[in-house]
């Protein structure tokens, strides 16, 4: 019987299977293996972790295909990779390499300051960042099969991740409280399609899985985001910029599963050594804030 690939159910379903898990940024095969051994549900391949992109500056792009191939060969878990916002050719390249998910990411330097990638044209699913509900729904309208709150990548400061999760959830709760005839104006205000706004109002949740990202550096940070209603967690610089990546990675995985059990989180937090140094988001000049990329 006919086999259909790239359907909405197959793309969104893949994200459902990642729920309750931690997806870790890795820049080489060795780190990917550490992440897999620590219990990561997937790895995100990129050329530099956000903290290094921040420190070194310059244009940040898709990873070298050779590196992606090596990471794919090293682990059995899904391999995701980042493409620049609007850079549909990078996305086509990543799809041809057989990555399992593409992150159209504000962490890389945008290729288009007006348009995002038309993600319906791809068989591979996409995850996109969002700081609020309108942005999340615009990405879903373009074909994103998974959303992550953005936070402020490469800082180790969880405050923006917190703010974005609160914002998305506040707006969802507000929609659920509106009369049906008020949803038209709500759609206008959110700058999002009416059909998606109506769907969110009815279900009280996004139509796709919502992970969280940006600034998560400790097991307690991961658990905090889970208790804010995240379906799972992305950890970027937080693991491989710490003093003991393998142990910290495993600890974050444990805390994500037992986010509601402070004893488990306490045990997971013991003796991890130095967390990444971190930067207060408040000290970052506005042009260097990655979360503001995305339109």
């Amino acid at each position, binding site marked *: *019987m*006919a*086999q*259909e*690939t*790239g*359907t909405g*159910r*197959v793309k969104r*379903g*893949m994200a*459902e*299977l*990642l*729920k*309750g*898990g931690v997806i870790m940024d890795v820049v080489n095969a060795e780190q990917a293996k550490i992440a*897999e*051994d*620590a*219990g*990561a*549900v*997937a790895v995100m391949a990129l050329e530099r972790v956000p903290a290094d992109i921040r420190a070194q500056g310059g244009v940040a792009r898709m990873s070298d295909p050779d590196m992606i191939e090596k990471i794919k060969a090293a*682990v*059995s*878990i*899904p391999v995701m990779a980042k493409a620049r916002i609007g850079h549909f050719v990078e996305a086509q390249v990543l*799809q041809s390499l*057989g*990555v*399992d*998910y593409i992150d159209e990411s504000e962490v890389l330097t945008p290729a288009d300051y007006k348009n995002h990638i038309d993600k319906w044209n791809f*068989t*591979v*699913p996409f995850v996109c960042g969002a700081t609020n509900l309108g942005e999340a729904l615009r990405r879903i309208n373009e074909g994103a099969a998974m959303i992550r709150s953005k936070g402020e990548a490469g800082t180790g400061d969880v405050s923006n991740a917190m703010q974005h999760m609160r914002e998305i959830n506040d707006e969802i709760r507000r929609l659920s409280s509106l009369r049906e005839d008020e949803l038209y104006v709500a759609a206008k205000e959110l700058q999002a399609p009416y059909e998606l706004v109506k769907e969110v109002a009815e279900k009280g949740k996004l139509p796709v899985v919502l992970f969280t990202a940006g600034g998560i550096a400790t097991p307690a940070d991961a658990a905090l985001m889970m208790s804010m209603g995240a379906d799972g967690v992305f950890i970027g610089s937080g693991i491989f910029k710490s003093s003991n990546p393998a142990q910290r990675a*495993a600890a974050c*995985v*444990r805390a994500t*599963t*037992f986010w509601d059990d402070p004893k488990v989180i306490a045990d997971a937090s013991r003796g991890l050594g130095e967390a990444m140094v971190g930067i207060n988001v408040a000290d970052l000049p506005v042009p260097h804030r990655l979360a503001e990329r995305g339109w």
Partner: protein
Amino acid sequence: MKVGVLALQGDVREHISALIACGVYPTTVRRPAELAAVEALVIPGGESTTIAHLSQIFDLFQPIRDRIAHGMPVYGSCAGMILLADHILDAKAGQETFGGLDITVRRNAFGRQVDSFESDIAFADATPAPVRAVFIRAPWVEEIGTGIEILAEIDSHPVAVRSKSILATSFHPELTGDHRIHRYFIEEVARGALQHLQ
């Protein structure tokens, strides 16, 4: 019937909704005491390496293995099928399973996510209309041992199998809103197995 869903990682929520639709009120299982309180277990779709890793850390691995060996009814979808297989191919080095089904399963057998698909399949005799099956980086059964019944196949690869008390599918009925497979597990597999145990 007290049914638990192993809730360390994966699409736990979808399995819970499907079980509720079948008239059972499942609990989540993350701790040994929670496992001890259930009569049957569902292992969700997710990442088999992650679920195995967490069950070892949180002292569930051996207890689940023992319960299955003593006849506890279990259903596993996708990652769940891998975890219920006695043997796996294309595994992460040293990857262990709960086992119980005398089968050899190949991980990611249909390919990577770009090859993931959905298709109508015939499922045993219990379901006259085809089942819409969603395969996501799915495994298939490469070899079967004794006492294994094949319930569904794709291109002559078994994708749903059962023994007396264990059901496994390489696809995800929990993602479609069609609850026939869960009902089959409860009514045809678990109920009989539990009566047998008593």
